[in-house]
């Protein structure tokens, strides 16, 4: 590639506050009738004034902390004007001049850092559904609190763009500020891409692909834009500064609006909301509420859990928190159960919400280590710990009920081994073994297992057999 690729990303995160940013209406419109979560403030009845949701301010502080950002003790709201039916007031309330979240950075799993320019609070717009001759307006989403996170142009590949978005998503989920449901638009990405000849002093002309809602589409859109722009530049043509949309099915971007037609938003300070002044104590208290973040877990579990397993598990803050409750000796076993059993389950999303207790998991791992459970037995017990009837019992009781505790009692096991050796049906095998055929040992262990109805620890049975037949 003879071009230097430069990417900057703006990300909108819907905050999972109880009520909306400027009114006291339910912020969670999932599964509700259109226009049922709308107050007179939201639909902009004359004379209505915005209130300010303190929880959104707290969430913004936590989000800022998760991105290593400065929190500005003084911030303010502005009006951004445009006419469209999704904007009842005729303007969006945002923070154009004095955002609440200042500079910071996000560290990618690769160790690369992407600087954050700032992040600001604003109200979301409503939703329009277009039909042949008319459109329907749903204002449920109006003034759902958003933070818009603006990165510096520190990203230089489609892969890093993907990783940045994913890490941002994880950070917001860990900080507990969003439901993080990408499919339903809880996080949306606008990606600015430009190409310039290697070594050039200035950046090339950029395009902005708006409203991407998956990491994969971010990566593909950037890949597409790089190819498209490189082709233009190769041919000596110019890239037009414009907004482009992403067609996921076709795998391509298409031009929507060029800079010449760009809107003038006529920003002005929001006179109905006084400036927000935060004390250092308030900021500190809120920051302290941010729990361990992905990087803290990478550090904590780095030597214990295999890196690829860890990266998979990091997508689930619940699992990380659960692992964090366990003693070092149990972490590896349980991490493997999480990745190989739980995440493979069809109902894994529901299961994540009802994880076994730390004690149950701790016991499970310990029984495995003691040889009381085989790998298969451990998985079986683990799966049963999600069963509504079983999950109230302790691990051993569950294992007993499943009848999977391995026989480790040497006395009892020796008796079984003796009976197998004495069994006429095994006489040939015993003779073969004694004659030097190691192969038949497996058959004999199998017989022991059978006689014990599967409860014998196969390793122990083998040892005893070897000793007795020596």
């Amino acid at each position, binding site marked *: 590639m003879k071009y230097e690729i430069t990417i900057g990303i703006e990300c909108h995160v819907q905050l999972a506050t109880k009520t909306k940013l400027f009114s006291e209406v339910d912020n969670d419109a999932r599964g509700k009738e259109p226009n049922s979560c709308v107050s007179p403030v939201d639909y902009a009845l*004359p004379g209505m004034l915005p209130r300010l949701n303190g929880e959104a301010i707290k969430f913004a502080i936590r989000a800022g902390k998760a991105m290593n950002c400065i929190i500005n003790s003084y911030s303010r709201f502005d009006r951004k004007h445009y006419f469209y039916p999704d904007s009842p007031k005729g303007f969006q309330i945002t923070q154009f001049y004095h955002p609440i979240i200042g500079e910071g950075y996000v560290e990618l799993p690769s160790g690369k850092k992407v600087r954050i320019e700032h992040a600001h609070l604003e109200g979301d717009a409503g939703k329009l559904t277009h039909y042949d001759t008319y459109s329907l307006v749903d204002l449920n989403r109006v003034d759902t609190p958003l933070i818009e996170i603006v990165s510096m142009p520190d990203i230089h590949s489609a892969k890093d763009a993907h990783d940045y978005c994913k890490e941002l998503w994880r950070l917001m989920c860990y900080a507990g500020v969003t439901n993080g449901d990408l499919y339903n638009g809880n996080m949306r990405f606008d990606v600015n891409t430009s190409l310039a000849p290697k070594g050039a002093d200035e950046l090339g002309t950029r395009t902005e692909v708006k409203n991407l809602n998956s990491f994969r589409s971010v990566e593909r859109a950037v890949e597409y834009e790089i190819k498209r722009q490189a082709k233009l530049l190769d041919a000596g043509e110019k890239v037009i500064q414009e907004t482009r949309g992403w067609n996921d099915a076709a795998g391509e971007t298409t031009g929507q609006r060029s800079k010449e037609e760009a809107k003038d938003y006529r920003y002005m300070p929001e006179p109905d909301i006084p400036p927000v002044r935060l004390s250092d104590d308030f900021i500190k208290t809120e920051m302290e509420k941010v729990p361990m973040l992905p990087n803290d877990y990478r550090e904590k579990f780095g030597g214990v859990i295999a890196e690829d397993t860890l990266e998979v598990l990091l997508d689930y803050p619940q699992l990380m928190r659960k692992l964090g409750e366990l003693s070092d000796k149990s972490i590896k076993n349980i991490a493997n159960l999480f990745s190989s059993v739980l995440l493979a389950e069809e109902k894994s999303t529901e299961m994540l919400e009802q994880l076994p207790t730390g004690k149950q998991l701790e016991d499970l791992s310990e029984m495995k280590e003691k040889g009381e459970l085989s790998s298969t037995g451990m998985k079986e017990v683990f799966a049963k710990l999600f069963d509504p009837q079983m999950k109230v019992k302790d691990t051993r009781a569950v294992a007993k009920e499943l009848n999977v505790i391995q026989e480790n009692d040497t006395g009892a096991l020796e008796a079984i081994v003796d009976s197998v050796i004495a069994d006429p049906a095994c006489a040939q095998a015993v003779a073969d073994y004694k004659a030097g055929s190691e192969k038949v040992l497996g058959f004999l262990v199998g017989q022991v297992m059978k006689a014990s109805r599967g409860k014998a620890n196969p390793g122990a049975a083998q040892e005893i057999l070897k000793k007795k037949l020596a």
Partner: protein
Amino acid sequence: MQIASKDVSAVDMVRAALDKAKKYADYNIFISLSEDAALNRAKEIDEKIAKGEKVGRLAGVPYACKDNFLSKQGATTAASKILEPLKAPLNATAIEKLEAEGAIMIGRVNLDAFAHGSSTENSYFGVTKNSTDMERVAGGSSGGSAVAVALDIVPFATGTDTGGSIRQPASFNGVYGIKPTYGTISRYGVVAMASSLDCVGFLARNTEDLNLLMEICAGQDPKDLTTLPDYYTKTEKKEPKKIGVIKDFDSDAIDPAIREVLRQKLSELKSDGYDIVDLEMPILKYALAVYYIICPAEVASNLSRYDGIRYGYRSEDAKNLDEIFGESRSDGYMKENKRRIMVGNFVLSSGFYDAYYLKAMKARTLIIQAFDDAFKKCDYILAPVSPNPAFRIGEKVNDPVAMYMEDILSVTLNLAGVPGVALPVGKTDSGLPLGLQLIGPRRSDKNLLDFAGKIGFKIDDKEGK
């Protein structure tokens, strides 16, 4: 003002007010009357009184509501076509508080559409006539409120003052009016004009009544983040000693009758033992320009919500989305509304913001400082409200700049957020009311009213003063 009692029934008071409202129909004061609702409320109050139950401080008092307040009673027009009278699902906080004390709204009174104007000529429902001379304007934008009080239809009316809209019509009709300190009364439920300048206030026939209304309505409202915690009822009584006079206002641009009545008043005060302090406030010469940048900017923004989508007027001819917006707003707004929207959007547009809006905001800060400095030298300031008494209908309506000059003395208070009380002080030779305004520092409203009552005309005293 009189409240209902065993001797005086609320029904009688309300009926009398309604009768007078109809008798003075030619003045075009009311946009709508709500006879049935008002009489029903009056009956309820009378029943309470009969049962010996407690009634409020305004029990049975009829009042006129400037038609830019939301109330579940009747419908709100803001004197515009575009609201296509709006049935509101809620009451403005001020209305809520008045009615909790037993006040009874008999109807909605006229204003310049969206309170844009100084004469009530910019109303979709026609012009309201001056209470002393039907050829002349009522002033504005609270023109209906002022005339309703001046003709004694009701003892008080609600008003809003963004750049003189209570004080100027009060002085054109010889009644009292208060524009409180910014943030004293909640703006919740009041159709917004310019948010950082809008003040809810009242017009009445004496300052005692205004004081009672202020006691009832002042205070913090969680629904309006710009309201101040109640200082009003906690005000300590303080008598002024020094009265300031702004020399910059004493120019040929002011009608001789007004200059004369001010001089007279000052010499009376001097002989009553008050110190008269001359104030130089040169920054005030920029006030009108500053006002006519900040106000239209906020107006343009606040009027964006009337787009024909969710409520209000939608053009029948609109064939697509742009036309719904464009045609509905073109038809629905008055000329003056559109003028302010144009100016406001211009001063906010990118490339012009710094030169106009930002600069105006800086000048506004200087105006605030100028008042802070002035009130180190004096307790109150006495000044004209407008450069002239009530002018003839049609005289200025096609000359926006002449009309804006009407506000040159009143807008400074809104920019600085300080309170002002308009008080009647005399009459021209031809009998037109002359008023002045008493200006005080922020939060001085209660003492200011008290003093205005002392030095103003006693309207209901047959002898005058």
